[in-house]
C-alpha cells in the first residue's frame, strides 16, 4: 500500500517537474536584477567571476521561511535533545557502526546513479567500497575502505543524475522534517527510495518512520553544535542555508 502511494506520488511529481522549467524560467528572467552598466567601476571586471554565484529561484519564500522556523524549532526541541541523550548514553563506537551500516546498505543508490551518469570508474569504486566494508568491515559496521583515499568518492544520488541529464533546480523548498531541497533533488530523493534496501525490507509506516528518525538522531549526535555555529555566524540564517545548500549541490553535481 505504502509503495503504491509512493509510486503515484513520484509519477505526479515528475509530471510537475516536466512542466515546471518553462514557468520558472520566465519567472527567473523577470525577477533577475538589472545588470549595472559595464566599466563603471574596477570591481565590475575584477570580481566578475565572483559575481556569477549560484542562485536558485525561491517563489515560495514566505512559505519556506515559515517552514524554516518550524524546522528550527524541531531541531532545538526534538532532534537536539534526542541526539544529546543518545550521545550521552550510547558509546561512540556503536553510533559510528550504526552510521556506517546505514551508509553501506544504501550502496545501490550510489552505485546505480554512478552508472546512470556513465561514471564507470566511480561505480567500480563504490562497488569495491561496498564489497570491502560488507566483508572485512563486518556488514558495513566498520568503514574499512576509508583507508584507501581513492575509494572516498563523493556519493551520487538521483537528484545529481537528473542534473547531469540536464534538469534544472526547479525551485527551492524548505520541507518540514526533511530540510532544504530543490524540486529536482526532492524528486530525486523520492526516486532513490526505490533503490534503498531499507525501503524494501522494513514493513509498515510507523516502523519506517522510527528507522528514519533513529538514523537522523544518530547522525545529528555527530554534528551537534554545527547548526548553532551556522546560525550564530549568519546574518540571515534562512538565506545562508539556501545559498549553502545550492553551493553544496552544485559542487556535488560537478563531481
Amino acid at each position, binding site marked *: 500500500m505504502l509503495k503504491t502511494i509512493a509510486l503515484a506520488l513520484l509519477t505526479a511529481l515528475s509530471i510537475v517537474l516536466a512542466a515546471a522549467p518553462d514557468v520558472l524560467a520566465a519567472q527567473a528572467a523577470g525577477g533577475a536584477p538589472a545588470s549595472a552598466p559595464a566599466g563603471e567601476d574596477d570591481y565590475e571586471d575584477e570580481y566578475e567571476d565572483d559575481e556569477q554565484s549560484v542562485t536558485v529561484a525561491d517563489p515560495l519564500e514566505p512559505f519556506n521561511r515559515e517552514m524554516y522556523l518550524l524546522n528550527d524549532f524541531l531541531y532545538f526541541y526534538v532532534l537536539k535533545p534526542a541526539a544529546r541523550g543518545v550521545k550521552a548514553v550510547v558509546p561512540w563506537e556503536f553510533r559510528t557502526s550504526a552510521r556506517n551500516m546505514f551508509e553501506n546498505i544504501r550502496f545501490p543508490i550510489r552505485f546505480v546513479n554512478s552508472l546512470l551518469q556513465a561514471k564507470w570508474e566511480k561505480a567500480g569504486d563504490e562497488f569495491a567500497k561496498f564489497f570491502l566494508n560488507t566483508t572485512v568491515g563486518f556488514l558495513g559496521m566498520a*568503514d574499512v575502505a576509508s583507508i584507501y583515499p581513492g575509494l572516498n568518492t563523493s556519493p551520487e544520488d538521483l537528484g545529481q543524475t537528473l542534473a547531469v541529464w540536464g534538469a534544472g533546480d526547479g525551485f527551492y523548498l524548505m520541507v518540514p522534517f526533511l530540510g532544504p531541497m530543490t524540486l529536482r533533488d526532492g524528486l530525486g530523493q523520492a526516486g532513490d527510495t526505490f533503490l534503498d534496501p531499507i525501503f524494501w525490507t522494513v514493513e509498515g509506516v510507523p516502523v519506517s518512520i522510527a528507522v528514519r528518525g533513529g538514523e537522523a538522531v544518530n547522525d545529528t549526535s555527530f554534528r551537534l553544535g554545527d547548526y548553532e555555529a551556522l546560525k550564530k555566524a549568519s546574518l540571515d540564517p534562512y538565506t545562508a542555508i539556501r545559498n549553502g545548500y545550492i553551493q553544496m549541490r*552544485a559542487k556535488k553535481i560537478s563531481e
Partner: protein
Amino acid sequence: MSTEFSRALGDGVKRVVDPAGRAAMEFRLHLFRIQRYNQPMRAQQSCRQTRAQLQQMPAAGWPRQGPSGTPPGVSGGIEAMRAHRRNPWIVAFAAIVATAVLAVAAGSARQTVEEQVQKILARLQDPAFKAESREAQIRQVEAIINQVFDYTELSKRTLGKDWRAFSPAQQKEFAELFGKLLEKVYADRVLAYTSERIDFGGETELREGQVEVKSEIVTADGRRIPLDYRLLLQDGRWRVYDVVIEGISLVQNYRSQFREILAKQSPEEVMRFMREKTAN
C-alpha cells in the same frame, strides 16, 4: 703529448659544458622571471644574483688567458679545463637546486596557510592553552588568523557592487566588523575540532596572483571535511580572501545574505546590525 692531450680534452669538455652551463643559468633566470609575481622580493634578489653570476661567466670561446692571468700554455689548458669543468657542473647543479627551490617557493601560498594552521594546531595541543578560559583561547586563535586573513578584500568581494554604496568610513568599519564576525566563527569552529588532523593537498592557480590551497580536516571518526583557502598576493604576502568549506564559499554565502538585507535596508542599518552582532 700530455699538453696537447689536456688541451684537446679541455677544449672538448669546454665546448660541451660551457654552453650548457650558460643555458642552465639562462633557464634559471627565466624561471625567476616567471616566479617574480609569485614572490617579488625574493625573486628579484635571485634574479639579480643570477644575472651577476652570468656576467662573471666566460663568454663562449676559448680563453686566451688562463683563469689567474697566466698565459695559456702547459698549465693553462689543464687549469682552464679544471675550472670550466668544475664551474659548469656546479652551475648545472645549482640550476637543479634552483628548480627544486622554485617548486617550494611556488608553494608559498600553501606554506603561508599551512604554517598558520600548524601554529593553531600546535597551540591547541599545548597543555597551558587547554587550561585557559574559552575566551582567552578564542582570542589567541584569532590573533593567529588575523595574520593571514585580508578582511578588506573579503569585505569588498562579499559586498561586490554594493561596496560602492558604502562611504569610505563605513567601508573601513565594515571590514573591521566583518573581520570580527568571521574571526569568531572560524576560531569557534577550530576549537570545536580540537582532536583532529588537517591534511594539506596541492594548490591550483585561479588566475595570476590568486591561488586556491586545498586542505582536509580529518575528523576523529575518519570523515574528511574539505576546506579550501583562496589566497591573493598583496605586497609580497599571501592573504586569504575566501574560505570554501565543503564546496561552500564563505564569500558567496555572505554575499547572498547581504544582497537580501541591502535590498530592504540602507548601509547604515546594516552597519548597526553588524555592530549588534559582534558586540558580545
